[in-house]
């Protein structure tokens, strides 16, 4: 075969393989919704293309199979027959056969020895059955461009032929049995010129390939080379930057350097992005896997996916394909029960396998869950004992979790019978080895009788994630933005007073909720920088728990390229990787989960409590409601939920002005009305007291702010409380006892609305804003 042919063949193979992947998925979709014409068209097109090209390349076997497949498909497309399971199975078998032949062509440039006569017979039988079932239907196997505009239409649009001529031509073609193409008929009838027809045909082709033109195929090796080169360029750039900084001379040189800097960074980011692929590329194969396996096992299983767009480096995508397939097989084969068993358990007959991918803490998590039977702990234990993997003594001491993890041991297989699908003795241990090889972790959550979830955590080697860059002890650290909730800056007095402690553990009250505080200096044993004027708390979330991390300085958010830690540092759970910053320096990426775990173990109380207990206690604190306790009048106490409070402020009495008969202050660039809460509640008005300062509780709602003037802010308490009504005056929900004293519970929205009726625009809004969560 000459070179041109080789190239053509290679292109045909690549394209066909890609199309086949799509085909599998389309067929599954089609089986579920047989009326989806769009999907049918797409399937038809794929097979048609394969048939056409292999005819050209001389692959007769492939052509024959795709031809019978196409005939069957054309009946489906024209609505003569609808897809049932039999047809779907046959078509899937066809794609498998086509794939097998393509593989044979790829390896040997021949089509292989297998004849696929059964398959061809089956497809023909189905086609005939469909045809006979609907004798009245027209035979429309004429295969003209199934999509887009037809040549006739284009000619009319282009003014090259009249609508009437085209219509006559079409009638001639359909009813008169004229087998020529429409263009030929029209040219013959002198309705248009041959040139125009050629133009229209070309136009039609262009429209079809517009999508294909926007992408090109690139060899991964080339991308790797580019990556290395960009790395070198970055280093050279850094040196030049340094040079430009040192010389401080020629402004043109400095300017050029800056330009070089920007371009290099963009180039680096761009090249790295070329290697990223959505995890969906692997997942797309799974619906077919699930369908085939479920049919084989006689089970009913559907697959759901979430987070298909999560991007991973290409090499990782390749590496996780097999382990994930294995896990899905396990779920169907061992996890999901037979339909009658499911029914008896009160579950829907249809089992579900759920795939989910998301970024967390600089890693990609992929979860494979099923709603099957879960893992039978007792059985795993007895099997492990039987196989001599553990001793009786060990078995007695093991927790359920540890027992479940035994399935990761080599040579463990729980399937009663070694089935065709999984349970060949090379089970979860291989999966784990493969995942760990790429630096990942695998976790198993077992819910007896309700299913299992396997969580695979994969590092994002080379992945680009947005991160917050912070400084601590002079070093820069990156915090993956997925873990980041918010930033809290504390200045001056607030800095000293707002970090409190609960039994020796530092906490901060964030909108009424207690937030455990972790000091990054202490965690990393770095020397704290002194004489800082402010404290910055980075509020983070790790495994559903929030905590605040104190850092010296927050620098910026940056798209960082995650690189794995060297093997020498793999065991350090405080970092999830490292990255190269814009200035060429290496920065460590904090492992938020790791830091959270670490800080809990080393709590200030010195108790080495295990993390679960600790989490519970944190939960308990948060469940209590935070209340802001105020002094109203000369001796009254009132409280309101801290959650609705925006800020606490202090104003000079002299700064209070009047507008429209109301007290107002200038605050953050706008005019904020003040509400005298003491007066509203029937105590002596705030304005009667003599202090120079007034304390104000600021609320905001829908971009507007209002200040509640109080006598004094006494405290913030964390209480579970019961409201009793001693006397239900205006503006109060009731009374309660806080810190041993009777306290009024203020109905914030009623008070505000009574003074500024227009503050809450709608009733529902006001309920949202002023509620107590536990009353």
């Amino acid at each position, binding site marked *: 075969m000459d070179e041109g042919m080789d190239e053509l063949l290679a292109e045909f193979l690549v394209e066909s393989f890609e199309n086949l992947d799509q085909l599998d998925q389309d067929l599954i979709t089609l089986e579920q919704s047989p009326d989806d014409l769009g999907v049918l068209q797409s399937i038809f097109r794929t097979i048609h293309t394969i048939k056409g090209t292999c005819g050209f390349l001389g692959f007769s076997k492939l052509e024959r199979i795709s031809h019978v497949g196409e005939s069957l498909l054309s009946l489906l497309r024209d609505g003569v027959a609808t897809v049932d399971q039999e047809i779907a199975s046959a078509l899937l078998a066809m794609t498998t056969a086509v794939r097998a032949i393509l593989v044979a062509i790829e390896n040997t440039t021949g089509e292989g020895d297998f004849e696929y006569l059964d398959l061809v017979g089956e497809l023909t039988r189905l086609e005939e059955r469909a045809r006979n079932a609907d004798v009245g239907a027209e035979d429309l196997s004429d295969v003209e461009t199934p999509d887009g505009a037809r040549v006739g239409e284009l000619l009319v649009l282009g003014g090259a032929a009249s609508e009437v001529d085209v219509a006559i031509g079409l009638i001639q073609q359909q009813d008169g049995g004229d087998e020529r193409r429409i263009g030929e008929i029209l040219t013959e009838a002198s309705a248009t010129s041959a040139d125009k027809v050629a133009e229209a045909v070309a136009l039609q082709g262009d429209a079809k390939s517009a999508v294909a033109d926007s992408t090109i195929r690139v060899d991964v090796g080339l991308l790797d080379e580019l*990556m*290395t080169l*960009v*790395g*070198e360029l*970055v*280093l050279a750039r850094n040196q030049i930057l340094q040079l430009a900084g040192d010389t401080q001379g020629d402004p043109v040189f400095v300017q050029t350097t800056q330009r070089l800097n920007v371009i290099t960074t963009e180039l*680096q980011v761009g090249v790295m992005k070329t290697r990223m692929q959505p995890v969906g590329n692997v997942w797309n194969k799974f619906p077919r896997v699930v369908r085939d396996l479920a049919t084989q096992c006689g089970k009913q299983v559907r697959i759901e996916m979430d987070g298909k767009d999560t991007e991973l480096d290409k090499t990782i995508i390749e590496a996780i394909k097999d382990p994930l397939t294995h896990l899905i097989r396990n779920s169907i084969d061992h996890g999901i029960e037979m339909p009658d068993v499911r029914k008896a358990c009160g579950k829907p007959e249809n089992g579900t396998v759920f795939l989910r991918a998301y970024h967390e803490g600089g890693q990609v998590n992929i979860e494979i869950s099923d709603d099957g039977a879960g893992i039978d702990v007792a059985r795993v234990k007895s099997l492990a004992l039987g196989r001599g993997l553990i001793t009786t003594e060990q078995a007695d001491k093991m927790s359920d979790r540890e027992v479940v993890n035994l399935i990761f041991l080599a040579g463990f297989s729980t399937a009663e019978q070694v089935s065709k699908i999984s349970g060949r003795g090379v089970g979860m241990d291989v999966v784990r080895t493969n995942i760990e090889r790429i630096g990942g972790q695998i976790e198993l959550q077992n819910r007896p009788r309700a299913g299992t979830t396997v969580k695979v955590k994969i590092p994002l080697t080379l992945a680009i994630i947005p991160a917050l860059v912070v400084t601590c*002890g002079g*070093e820069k650290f990156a915090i993956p933005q997925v873990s980041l909730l918010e930033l809290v800056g504390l200045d001056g007095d607030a800095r000293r007073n707002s970090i409190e402690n609960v039994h020796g553990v530092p906490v901060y009250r964030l909108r009424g909720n207690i937030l455990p505080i972790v000091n990054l200096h202490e965690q*990393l*044993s*770095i020397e704290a920088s002194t004489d800082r004027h402010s404290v910055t708390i980075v509020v983070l979330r790790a495994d559903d728990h929030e905590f605040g991390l104190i850092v010296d300085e927050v620098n910026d958010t940056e798209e960082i390229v995650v*690189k794995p830690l*060297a*093997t*020498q*540092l*793999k*065991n*350090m759970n*405080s*970092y999830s990787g*490292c990255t*190269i910053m814009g200035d*060429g*320096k*290496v*920065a*460590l990426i904090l492992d938020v989960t790791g830091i959270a775990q670490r800080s809990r173990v080393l709590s200030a109380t010195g108790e080495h409590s295990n993390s679960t207990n600790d989490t519970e206690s944190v939960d308990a604190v948060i469940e209590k409601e935070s209340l802001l306790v105020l002094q109203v009048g000369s001796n009254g106490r009132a409280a309101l939920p801290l959650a609705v409070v925006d800020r606490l402020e202090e104003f000079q009495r002299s700064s209070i002005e009047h507008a429209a008969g109301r007290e107002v202050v200038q605050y953050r660039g706008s005019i904020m009305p003040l509400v005298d809460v003491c007066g509203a509640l029937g105590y002596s008005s705030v304005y009667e007291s003599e202090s120079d300062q007034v304390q104000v509780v600021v609320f905001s709602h829908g971009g507007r702010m209002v200040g509640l003037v109080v006598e004094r802010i006494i405290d913030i308490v964390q209480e579970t409380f019961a409201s009793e009504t001693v006397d239900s005056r205006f503006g109060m929900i009731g009374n309660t006892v806080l810190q041993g004293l009777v306290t009024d519970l203020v109905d914030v929205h009623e008070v505000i609305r009574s003074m500024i009726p227009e503050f809450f625009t709608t009733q529902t809004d006001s309920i949202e804003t002023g509620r107590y969560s536990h009353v």
Partner: protein
Amino acid sequence: MSEPRQFCTMHLGEHLFGVAVMRIQEVISYQEMTVVPLAPRVIGGLINLRGQIVTAIDLRARLGMPPQEKGALPMNVVVQAPGGAVSLLVDQIGDVVDVDEEIFENPPETLTGVARELIRGVYKFEESLLLELDIDKTIEIVAAELANA
């Protein structure tokens, strides 16, 4: 084994160490390092080697030697290892020398501790002794130490 081998020599304090040239990727001058808090002392830091992040191992710490004087900047000897390149921090880089197995001798019995494990043997040059470093062990035990840390 009688054919001569090439060694790259490096100075650490008063000692002269040697590493097989074939194992060395490159030798570079001092690079700015990012300290890894909580890591054991043998981890000198992380350096950016043309976009590749390389872990630097403080060879003095690894061999249980006192740290270099303040202000002295170590040089990097980048060696290839199974897990990726690793840099060895040394005081000063020496030369590339041909060595003959005939002048090789096992380390003296009196040598104990970490050095015993890391020093493969001694080449007796006229003016000095060249200590052959076992690179794999030098790098590997760091991982073990880390697990304990």
